[in-house]
């Protein structure tokens, strides 16, 4: 049986799993799940070619493979390194990795303005989570942070370059969904910035997805700008019959109003299916949607505060058939006297 695909056996933090050849360490770790999954800011499984930019997913390979058991000399980016048979990977068990990750977070935050109280992404921001888990309390950076003016990309999306960590996710999204490259990174190194060439308005029907893929608050929904904080809104899964996309979205309710529509995100903050601009920006009415159930929010997320888990919370009082009947009888009697 030579044509049967040989599975590679890897162990990540001592947990072994068998995966197909060509799988990256990050995806192997995601198959195991739990705490051992390295965080990723730039890798996005739905976008081809993403990853390898932010270095938050660094891991230590303590044993290269069964044939060549030498460890890899440096920490490797797990989103770009494929597994080998018999590979042993250390993520949270290696103090070296945790230390390196701390340094990476510090680097990412060098030019980040930390204006979380103002930013609309606060509460669902991956960089916020990452710096909370791995970062230091104080910055050592003494120089002026680079700052830009806000740019409107079209009339619905706003680019806030100050907050950008140059993960390139939005570039890949624009590239792969539109088929026409209008949006890219200009200048080099420290001066690099996301831009549409000469601020071209992006008019593709799927361009709203750059908001969803942005791990920070650099690309935000202008229709949601300063409307409300994320944790005061309630996410509900809903769908509609959309001619251009799958129509499966998350509606963010404040009271009875839909104040924002986003794609459905999984535990790694990646959308399941990209949604079109009509669904995202124009259908902000409960009538337009078929509601399914409240979105599952992790208990640790700030969004979960003050939310019910069940769509219709169970009644506080137990139903009593006998009592109901007696009440109906009583009502009939009192009606007769009128």
């Amino acid at each position, binding site marked *: 049986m030579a044509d049967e695909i040989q599975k590679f056996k890897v162990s990540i933090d001592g947990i072994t799993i068998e995966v197909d050849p060509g799988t990256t360490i990050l995806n192997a770790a995601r198959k195991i799940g739990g705490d051992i999954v390295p965080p990723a800011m730039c890798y996005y499984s739905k976008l081809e070619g993403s990853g390898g930019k932010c270095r938050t997913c660094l891991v230590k390979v303590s044993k290269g493979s069964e044939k060549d058991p030498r460890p890899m000399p440096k920490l490797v980016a797990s989103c770009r390194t494929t597994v080998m048979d018999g590979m042993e990977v250390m993520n949270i068990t290696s103090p070296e990795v945790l230390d390196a990750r701390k340094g990476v977070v510090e680097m990412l935050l060098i030019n980040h303005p930390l204006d979380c109280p*103002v930013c609309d992404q606060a509460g669902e921001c991956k960089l916020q989570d990452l710096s909370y888990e791995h970062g230091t309390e104080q910055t050592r950076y003494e120089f002026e942070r680079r700052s830009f003016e806000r740019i409107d990309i079209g009339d619905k999306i706003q680019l806030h370059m100050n907050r950008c960590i140059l993960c390139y996710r939005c570039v890949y999204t624009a590239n792969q969904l539109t088929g026409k490259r209008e949006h890219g990174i200009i200048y080099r190194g420290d001066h690099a910035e996301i831009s549409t060439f000469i601020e071209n308005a992006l008019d593709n029907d799927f361009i709203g997805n750059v908001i969803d893929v942005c791990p920070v608050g650099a690309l935000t929904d202008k229709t949601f700008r300063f409307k409300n904080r994320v944790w005061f809104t309630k996410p509900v899964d809903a769908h509609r019959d959309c001619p251009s996309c799958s129509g499966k979205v998350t509606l963010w309710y404040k009271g009875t109003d839909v104040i924002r529509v986003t794609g459905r995100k999984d535990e790694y903050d990646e959308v399941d299916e990209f949604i079109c601009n009509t669904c995202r920006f124009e259908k902000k009415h409960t009538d337009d949607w078929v509601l399914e159930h409240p979105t599952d929010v992790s208990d640790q997320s700030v969004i979960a505060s003050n939310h019910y888990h069940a769509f219709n919370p169970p009644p506080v009082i137990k139903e009593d058939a006998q009592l109901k009947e007696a009440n109906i009888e009583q009502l009939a009697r009192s009606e007769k006297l009128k």
Partner: protein
Amino acid sequence: MQSLSNRKKVLEQKPMSFWERIYLPAIAKGLSITIKHFFKKIPTVKYPEEIRPYSKNFRGQHSLKRDELGRERCTACGLCALSCPAEAITMTAAERKKGEELLYREEKYAVVYEINMLRCIFCGLCEEACPKEAIYLDGKHVTADYLRKDFIYGKDKLLEPKFDITKLNQQSTSN
């Protein structure tokens, strides 16, 4: 049965003696206690004229602070409302327009900021949560009122009046 503690006292009721029957010693004893109190220090604080000293960390009515240029510090981040165990705080945010830079410190500000003083338990968690040092419970007591709606304090009641920082500094240096 013998008492376990050995402290039981058996009271004996006897007819009153002559001195007890005339009551005068008992009256004199009672009056002497009353008269003694005439010469003691009066513990009553006569409130409107005299005010008791407040503790340094007394938490009273909230005030929304301004910075050294007189701009409102609050940026409507909602952390006070999130931390509030009584859910007393609500706010609506708005974007700062051009020309309002001297009114508001950040690009976002609270256009409506309301605290329901009937709900508030003065725990001070909003003060602790605030990342902008914009809210402090440094006021006096919240006064009584007749209508429920009057207990919902808006920005008109909460916002600190404008002050001149230079004069404030002079005062503190001369003292």
